[in-house]
């Protein structure tokens, strides 16, 4: 919309907005996270919701206990291979539009425990992640910054066209296959639609 026209109208007391702006404003100011903490990063997430670094002022007032009522999953903590199918199942149970913040080094890539026998090297192997938040653990201010980054991303999503969110796109998948327990590892070890191992050009 033309900014000059909008400025003139607002000086006359007429407020104008596009449907897209209103839609995204409503969505980004009331993101309800899922009560989901796995390990030490969960303590920092709890600290972010407490009095000093209040997450409620950003709209994330109520952490929902049920995935059916949540639209953000903050994966905080090491995802073990034993827990990974449950994480994917919970993600599948969340209704669209849903977002994922991978909080902490362990959720991003396995973190300091990457060589462990039971550590999944990053939750982005099975579900799409919107915001990666490095840190071990990230400070509450960092989680707030990640939250605001997510809000900015939601703001920039257009309702039609290529950049539209997943719930308005009938072809985009909303549910992802749940990995099964194998003999030594999960099967499949990663979801090829979601993640590929980083390829490094090696000088032979």
């Amino acid at each position, binding site marked *: 919309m033309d900014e000059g026209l909008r400025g003139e109208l607002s000086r006359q007391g007429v407020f104008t907005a596009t449907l897209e702006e209103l839609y995204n404003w409503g969505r980004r100011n009331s993101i309800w996270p899922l009560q989901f903490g796995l390990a030490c990063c969960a303590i920092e997430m709890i600290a972010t919701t407490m009095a000093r670094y209040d997450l409620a002022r950003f709209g994330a007032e109520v952490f929902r206990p049920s995935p059916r009522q949540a639209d953000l999953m903050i994966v905080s903590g090491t995802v073990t291979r034993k827990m990974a199918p449950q994480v994917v199942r919970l993600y599948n149970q969340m209704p669209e539009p849903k977002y994922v913040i991978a909080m902490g080094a362990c959720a991003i890539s396995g973190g300091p425990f990457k060589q462990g026998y039971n550590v999944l090297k990053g939750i982005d192997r099975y579900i799409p992640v919107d915001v990666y938040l490095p840190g071990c653990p990230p400070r509450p201010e960092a989680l707030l910054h990640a939250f605001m980054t997510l809000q900015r991303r939601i703001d920039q999503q257009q309702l039609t066209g290529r950049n539209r969110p997943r719930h308005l796109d009938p072809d985009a998948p909303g549910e992802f296959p749940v990995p099964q327990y194998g003999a030594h590892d999960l099967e499949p070890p990663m979801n090829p639609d979601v993640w590929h*191992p980083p390829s490094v050009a090696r000088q032979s």
Partner: protein
Amino acid sequence: MESLDQIKTRVETTIPGARLEVIPNDSPAQQPSLLVDPEHALAVAKFLRDDARLCLDYASNVTGVDWSDTVLKEKVKVKKVIKGIERELEQITETVRPGCLEAVYHLYSMTLKHGPMVLRMRTRNRSDQNRLPSLTPIWRGAEFQEREIYDLFGIVFTGHSDLRRILMWDGFQHHPMRKDYVEPDDYEYEPTAHDEVLEKAKRHQAREAGT
């Protein structure tokens, strides 16, 4: 608390037939441990818990150890006759100490406020004879820890009420903390690989180059 030798003599007089051994520890921790044979372990544990002077009623930690087959080299000075002259030579004798699995218990006393006392139990070998009596009937806190030892080392505790895997999933094969556990090849790129991770990276790249 009494020294381990005193405890050993008292246990041997109370429970006839128990084969105990005090294993010294030269590390700065200075915690020698008492090795108990599996047949009398339950009786020894009951004595340690119920004795008035020891009263070790709290098992704070139960862990497992995997001793693999080690080759012990000993240098022995031997007198030999070579070319008519008797000389003293150093001969290196190699003995193979068979490996075993071991469960280690750290015991404290809450009533008398002393401890720790370290108790050990060894299996016969690492492959088929891997059964040990469970001390969960004596110290309830050992329940989850013995499940962990079963999961990670493979020691089967007889008399345990609910022996199943606790950290890995139920269908997992093999035991991850054993020295001969082979990890699945799931190496992912690391920017600063060194030591074991570098070895793992080289093996992975060799395997990828081979396929």
